[in-house]
């Protein structure tokens, strides 16, 4: 299969602090890669670095001409000023047909366009952000911590949505998550990250209690350390 992304010996330093160390991995077309790790492990920084937002050492090689869609973590609700969903999309594209297409893809009908962006539920907002990322037909979707369980029953969950998009659009997906069940159910490849990679490979092969305690244990140790002084 075709390689979409190749990362070699990636090191990211921000304000002199090492955030990501010695990370190498490859993503093939159509794969789902999950990035698992505790808070402050550098997961978000990794996505942003792949998007070119931070300086780095090492190699990041995207397939030539690849298009990337990005859903950032926790985009705050827009409460300061009124903006309709249609106007929000028009900040990215003027193509109305495309706006309607992505809206349908995430399960809304056209009437939704007139709604105020600040007055929808957080589950709906997340879908709108996915639709935003799908504009201009990306090959790869980078998704920072989808929040599950906020959709009202009867709707498809955010993961079912991603599964469907992957199938219909042949998307390659890079997903940051805390949720272990998602790693097992949904992904082909996992990177356990705590600044340096703790494990990487097929979820069923590389994730075990030992790895998890190594991944999350450190956080607990830091915590105890902090309280001891």
């Amino acid at each position, binding site marked *: 299969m075709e390689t979409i992304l190749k990362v070699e010996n990636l090191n990211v330093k921000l304000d002199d602090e090492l955030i990501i160390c010695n990370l190498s991995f490859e993503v093939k077309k159509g794969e789902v890669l999950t990035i698992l790790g505790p808070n402050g492990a550098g997961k978000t920084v990794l996505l942003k670095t792949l998007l070119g937002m931070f300086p780095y050492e090492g190699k990041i090689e995207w397939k030539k001409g690849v298009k990337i869609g990005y859903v*950032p973590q926790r*985009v705050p609700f827009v409460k*300061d*000023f009124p*903006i309709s969903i249609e106007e929000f999309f028009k900040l990215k594209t003027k193509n109305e047909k495309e706006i309607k297409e992505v809206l349908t893809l995430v399960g809304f009908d056209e009437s939704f366009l007139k709604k*105020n962006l600040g007055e929808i539920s957080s589950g709906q907002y997340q879908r709108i952000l996915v639709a935003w990322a799908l504009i201009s037909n990306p090959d790869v979707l980078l998704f920072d911590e989808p929040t599950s369980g906020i959709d009202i029953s009867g709707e498809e969950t955010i993961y079912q949505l991603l599964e469907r998009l992957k199938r219909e659009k042949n998307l390659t997906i890079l997903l940051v998550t805390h949720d272990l069940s998602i790693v097992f159910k949904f992904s082909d490849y996992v990177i356990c990250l705590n600044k340096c990679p703790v494990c990487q490979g097929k979820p069923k092969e590389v994730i075990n209690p030992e790895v998890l305690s190594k991944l999350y244990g450190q956080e607990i140790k830091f915590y105890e350390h902090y309280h001891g002084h």
Partner: protein
Amino acid sequence: MVTNFFEILISGIFVGGVAGYLGSLMLSRKMTIVVDPLSHLALPGVALALIFQKDISLGAFLFLFFGAILIWFLEQKTKLPTETIIAILFTVSLAITFLFLSEHEIEEALIGDISKIGKIESLITVLISLFVFFLVQRIYPKLTLISISEDLAMAEKIDLKKYQFLYLLSISAVVALGVKFVGGLLVAGLTALPAASSRNLSKNLKSFKFISSLFGMLCAIFGIFISQFTNLPAGPLIIVSGLFLFTISILFKK
């Protein structure tokens, strides 16, 4: 009625309109309050202009623009909160203004004076207003996205620094124009009141921008007319008109 009433009115409509338009953006950027201290930075510029008998808008613009850059620089250097830096610059500029100006000039600097606007001045005011209007129109979508989410904006490869700079430039220009009409103390109201009223009445960005500009114009028209008939200063009347519209907007809030 004064001989230059038409010039005053036309200038007022344009300045009010562009102030309202920019004000809608400033409301969305959570930056309305910044205009207030920023506008006081214009005061020493106004003072110098009055002393050397130059146009007060020019003096205000130069001081504002360099003041804004100074704030940015001090912020980077000292890591002090922006509010603290602005408070320092604000009080210092106010102190300097009071030191050098006569009582009448202080009044003009603080609440504006439109009585001297002539044909050429009003033409320049209209042209600058139009220029700023088109500049703001250009940067509006990108700044809206930046204020929704810097992450989304950066993913779209938007140069945040460039747009923030253009934004600052626009604010400096509008405050400089506004200083003449409502003075350095009141100019924040000229941008904030129409936008706040408009938000109460709007359901989307398009009507928000439109009503905000329209209300800016109406404030200027009301204020200038009432000033003609009452002989009270136009500046405070423009702001009071803004308050009137704001009150109405609350009654019709959506």
